[in-house]
């Protein structure tokens, strides 16, 4: 592993290896080593979650959003899946000389809008400019803090736990792919880029029953499910028919041979709960407009080999590898 490749940024095995080899040993501390979506820090007034996210997406304006909205929602969502109410955010920009200020204004408008809608204040920031060709238009980093509310704390997985997703999978990945490749016209493919702050009251209510949460961005659900069972004595079985996928995403996947399990989302959460609590949690999620397509997609089972399997029609099955089978570069 001598040089950085796209795989190091794809969110799967190679990304993890890079972190474990380069950053963890140097930055070592207990909060970091949990490698969660955000770090939960014990401060005087309670527990706070702290996260950072950098966005390099191409194209910067896409169906359903732009890099600004993505950057704000990305960090908000990382906090929500840590059980926190997002509160403050910083943003750092790297701009390419020559970038259109009117486009920057559009992006800033998006950011302001997304932050305000989630009750988040952007309280500090930084801007750097590099020469033409030294960055691709605009890169944005956001770092955010929120207060942990309710009783959510990650807990060990057990056989019988249920897996829930809060909406159709793979919308962001399929929308970006189509924006770039222009395969389908007049399409309903639109990114699911959105803030998950609507989930905070539900997480607060069900905190005790929730085992773990993640937002399935790079690599998609397939990679996340593998990550979640890594190091446990569990496996996962999901039912293909139970996975919510929009018709448009399904069509694109059929056309080009993509797998919705590996397409990124930018406005969804995957939640694992105690078996008994699953139905009520889904009902609570569905009662929030943004969660109307929430569904139980499978269960945790005992499996010392930590495999993720999908039941297909006719009793067929397939195993989901921990690496994204396809790599869409600069997807988020």
């Amino acid at each position, binding site marked *: 592993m001598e040089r950085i490749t796209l795989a190091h940024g794809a969110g799967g095995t190679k990304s993890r290896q890079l972190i474990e080899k380069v950053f963890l040993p140097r930055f070592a501390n207990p909060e970091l080593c949990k490698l969660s979506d955000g770090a939960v820090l014990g401060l005087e007034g309670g527990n706070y979650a702290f996260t950072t996210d950098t966005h390099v997406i191409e194209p910067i304006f896409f169906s359903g959003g732009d890099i600004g909205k993505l950057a704000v929602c990305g960090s908000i969502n990382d906090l929500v899946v840590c059980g926190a109410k997002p509160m403050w955010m910083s943003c750092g920009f790297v701009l390419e000389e020559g970038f259109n200020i009117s486009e920057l204004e559009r992006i800033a408008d998006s950011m302001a809008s997304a932050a305000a809608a989630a009750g988040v204040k952007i309280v500090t920031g930084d801007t750097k400019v590099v020469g033409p060709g030294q960055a691709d238009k605009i890169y944005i980093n956001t770092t955010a803090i929120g207060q942990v509310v309710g009783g959510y704390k990650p807990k060990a997985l057990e056989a019988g736990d249920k897996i829930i997703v809060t909406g159709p999978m793979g919308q962001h990945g399929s929308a970006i792919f189509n924006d770039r490749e222009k395969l*389908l016209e007049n399409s*309903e493919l639109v990114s699911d880029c959105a803030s998950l702050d609507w989930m905070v009251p539900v997480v607060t209510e069900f905190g005790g029953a929730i085992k773990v949460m993640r937002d399935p961005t790079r690599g998609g659900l397939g990679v996340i499910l593998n990550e979640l069972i890594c190091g446990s004595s569990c496996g996962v079985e999901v039912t293909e028919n139970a996975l919510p996928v*929009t018709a448009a995403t*399904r069509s694109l996947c059929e*056309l080009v041979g993509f797998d919705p399990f590996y397409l990124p989302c930018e406005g969804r959460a995957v939640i694992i709960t105690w078996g008994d609590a699953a139905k009520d949690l889904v009902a609570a999620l569905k009662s929030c407009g943004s969660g109307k397509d929430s569904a139980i997609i499978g269960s945790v089972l005992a499996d010392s080999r930590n495999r993720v399997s999908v039941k297909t029609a006719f009793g067929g099955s397939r195993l989901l590898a921990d690496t994204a089978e396809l790599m869409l570069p600069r997807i988020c």
Partner: protein
Amino acid sequence: MCLAIPMKIESIEGQIGRASIPGGQYAARLDFLDNVKVGDYVLVHAGFAIEILDEAEALKTLEVLQEYERLSSEIPGRADSSGPA
């Protein structure tokens, strides 16, 4: 890769058939098909429509397939190309 998807022709402009699939449209090439009409379902492979799906034949095949549910104890006789006699 023989992936070919059924798509419905919504409009035709020269060699291009604008075909719909759930959630979007695809501009398929019609170079290999004569007599394609709006409303036809075509099989599209690698961007080209390779055949018009014959609805009547599809229905016939389905009927035969559904017969198998009913004829579980009867072994088919000499089969013509559509199934049990």
